[in-house]
């Protein structure tokens, strides 16, 4: 389990993370979404012991990460900007990983290279951007660590490869109980991958939830009555948003959809329809409920890109 408490990281006058609290359970795929500069990469770097926190602390499996090889051997990091040894190929990189990660599996490495159809003897500098991401992913997954951190890794993969990586990730999570932490600008990227999602905003996690809960906790109700009505007709329901145009009203409601449907139906509406929300919509409504403005350019730019 990864635990962050009051995690703070500053770069000069800039506070990249401020009093961040987070719990990332073992055996899940944890998505971290946020705009540019929200602190996603900084958080991942703190998780991997690249930075020493200015304040607060972060632990993996109960141990402090910074400069602690015993903890770090359980973590592997695929950064957004990849590093490969100069003039190296995959075999050479595998040697580097093998020397650093005690559980590095050569068999897994060969298996993954074959799955991705990557030439292990070809210079990595001649690989395309996507192939380099695949190569980094192969190496990371071959390290057989308990935690894998991907910093916007999926963004550079084509749909086929993305699915392949996701499939492998699922396999690792299910078979080995591995935990994957994935960051992205795009909620859609993470929507069908992650078990848990967190929104990072201005250096803090403003929202964190189970994806399934998120998807089912909010729903949209479209309703119409022959007489005049307003929001008060639906007292007892937790309405996050109420928008009425003419006789038709759209409501975003949190709670059990079946109970809500029964409660609304009791008022004999002309029209009653329960509609599911996309994850992006759920996030936006939750954020709005928390008081964050949709018009915030940093949030808006990131979320809706």
């Amino acid at each position: 389990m990864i635990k962050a408490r009051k995690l703070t990281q500053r770069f000069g006058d800039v506070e990249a993370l401020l009093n961040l609290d987070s719990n990332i359970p073992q055996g899940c795929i944890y998505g971290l979404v946020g705009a540019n500069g929200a602190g996603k990469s900084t958080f991942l770097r703190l998780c991997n012991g690249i930075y020493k926190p200015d304040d607060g602390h972060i632990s993996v499996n109960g141990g402090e990460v910074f400069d602690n090889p015993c903890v770090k051997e359980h973590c592997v990091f695929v950064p957004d900007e990849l590093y490969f040894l100069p003039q190296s190929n995959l075999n050479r990189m595998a040697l580097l990983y093998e020397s650093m990660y005690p559980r590095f599996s050569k068999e897994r490495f060969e298996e993954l290279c074959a799955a991705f159809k990557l030439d292990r003897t070809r210079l990595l500098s001649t690989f395309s951007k996507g192939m380099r991401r695949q190569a980094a992913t192969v190496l990371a997954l071959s390290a057989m660590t308990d935690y894998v951190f991907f910093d916007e890794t999926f963004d550079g993969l084509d749909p086929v490869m993305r699915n392949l990586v996701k499939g492998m990730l699922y396999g690792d999570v299910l078979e080995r109980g591995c935990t994957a932490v994935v960051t992205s600008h795009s909620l859609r990227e993470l929507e069908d991958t992650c078990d848990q999602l967190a929104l990072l905003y201005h250096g803090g996690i403003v929202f964190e939830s189970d994806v399934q809960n998120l998807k089912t906790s909010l729903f949209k109700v479209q309703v119409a009555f022959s007489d005049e009505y307003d929001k008060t007709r639906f007292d007892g329901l937790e309405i996050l948003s109420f928008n009425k145009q003419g006789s038709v009203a759209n409501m975003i409601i949190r709670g059990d959809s079946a109970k809500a449907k029964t409660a609304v139906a009791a008022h004999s509406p002309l029209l009653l329809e329960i509609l599911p929300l996309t994850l992006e919509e759920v996030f936006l409504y939750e954020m709005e409920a928390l008081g964050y403005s949709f018009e915030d350019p940093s949030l808006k730019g990131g979320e809706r890109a």
Partner: protein
Amino acid sequence: MKPYLESVRRLSRTGLALFALSAVASVVVAMQFCMQPYLSALPRMNQMFSPLVVFTYLGGLALAMDGFSFLNKRSDSDYYHSLPISRKKLFWAVTLAALTWIAATVLASVLLTTIVFTITKVSFVTLYPIVAVPFYIVATMLVFAAASIAVSLTGTFLTDIALAALVLGLLRFIQFTVARGVVADAQIVGWLDLPWYLSPVTNIATGQIAMLTRHMLDARLYDFGNIGYSALLAVGELFLASLFFARRPSELAEHGAKNGRMQTLFACLAVLPVGMLFSSGVVAANRANILLLLAISVGIYVIYQFVVLRAPQRVLRSLPWLLVPLALAASGYFATQGVTLAIRNDIPRLENVAYVQFGGSGRGTDYVSYQQYRVSQVRFTENEVKQLALSSLRDNVASIERLGYVSIEYNPQGNYYSVSEPVTFVLNNGRRVSRVVTFQNQNQLYSIRESNQDYADAIRALPPEYSVCYLQGENPYSGGFVSNKSILRAYYQEISETRIVPNDSYRLYDPNVAYNINEWQAIGSLNLTGYVGMQRYEDYYNIRLELPDSSSAWMYWQNERSSNEYLDLLQQIVDRSESFTGATDYLDCSMMFYNMPMSDGTNQSVSFYYGGYAHDENNYYASFLPLMKEICQILLRSEPTTDPSGLFVYTSWSGRALGEDGTFIGADIMAANAATNGNASDNNVFYSSSGVAYYTGNTGSIISYNPSYRSFTPSDEARLIELLEQWETLQKTLSYSGAEGEQSVTIDSGLHVYASPTPQPTPAG
């Protein structure tokens, strides 16, 4: 182990390149040295391993820059710090990998150099390879350590290099400038007398650079003490670097410094050397220079800060910090003055001096004489010696304080020289005080020192035979070495029997002794080059008639080498010299007669010259022609001799003349000796009578190459002395004596007593 092996692999590209370059360069440089014609010198350490001198800096820097290259790019730095290895372990893995490559390169280079020297049978100091291995490994690691500190504190290639140079050299530069100022100002200490904290060679990496500017430091650089100190320094710096490395924020990559304060610190460090120039004494501390250096300092500081801070306001805010290096520079100046004064005033008291040692005035030269090496090891406990050294030191200091320099009252009528000798006073508590002391009277010093038996033995000692690498310039594998050995053995034997001081530098100076009289007549010299331990020596001993066996051996050796003197051709050319017909005809003939009876009853060496050339309108030597013609006839009848006690001659000549038939005299010999691309009449080959062709641009000539010593029959000898007496008289008449003033001692044929038969010493060997 795995991170270490991984680091070795990662450094393999740079490591292998350096390894290959050093190995090839070592072989090439060694072969270049070993293939030299007429090689008769032992190489210096840095000459023998010159590729490793370059490797010290290039290798140390390149391996550090490569090993820690990831620190200069944010993504790379992040990646390495994400790996499950502690920062210190990562640092030491890279460091040990670099050490592995450095050690492999040094070992291979030293081994290859040694193999080349051994295969080509060229002598070298056998301890050099043994010392070179730790020396160059430690020196390179010092550079590596400095660069490691730099890369741990900065995040760009340029700042890495700049800071590495500062870490490696700044303190040493300051030390060097202070030392230079002290040497220049104190006047009684040399570079080799500086206390350890001012010695520029304790740090062997920068010591090599200091040695390039002060060659005498070569004598100290390779001390094991310096190597040990440098090794400790390297380890200390590496530990410091590992601390910096462990605390280095990853985000420092691609930035010159962690923050503005660090940039200001770097700017101050960059300014410091400029201010320190006053301390060195290179720049006089006058108002104009102070203003100039102040302006340069401000310029450097402001430009640096503008480049890195990019904000005029921040530059202005940091400006007061400039006072710090300026204050330090001023402190350095006053520290130099203080140390200078302290050194001058540090004159030990007689009762505190346990003994004194004399390093020898030639201690800073490339080679020292064997006797100097031996003398430098002698401990003089005699009060008289200590007192003389101390009183001379006091006089020197008093003179400097009074006049600004050491003043010697030179007495032109005096029968002595003054001499400057490095003296080390070893105090009872073990402290060593080294000064260069000028002694008013060299003879007094030498005489007093002779009371020390070790000294008396040292100045009469000759190098052990096994240590001799070149004898008369010949190496032990040549035939020349073997044939010269007869001279060496005779000389060694006679020196041990007579206890004559072989090295003239250690003889008492006597203005009345002329070195061409009686037993002082020098006939040849013995040249020995070799080494004892790490000490190389080169000795020249005059072979004088005082050592008859050695003289005889010399004459024997010279006669053996004499291939052809062409005395018959000499006679023919002398005959033609009355009126040379060829435009390029000429004759140069020198005759050195030994044991010539003189009017004062002595036997002396006397030289005569006869010469001429075509179209010489004055033809000064025409008057000597009848004498020369007869001398030539006598020379033709003379025989080679090895007897140094009788009258004998050594004739060397060269010449060229057309005979009556219009062909060159001796043209057949010149043609027979012709080189591949010339003949007797061309203009680019210089023929010697030994058959050696010299490409000097001269026209062909005959040279009596390696003439022999020749003696005469009793009647010829008597006639010869008469002829030479007449020659001398004629010279006087024509004022061609060559000597100014009236010649008081002349050849006197009447005084010649012909001892018949002359005892013939058995030629040695």
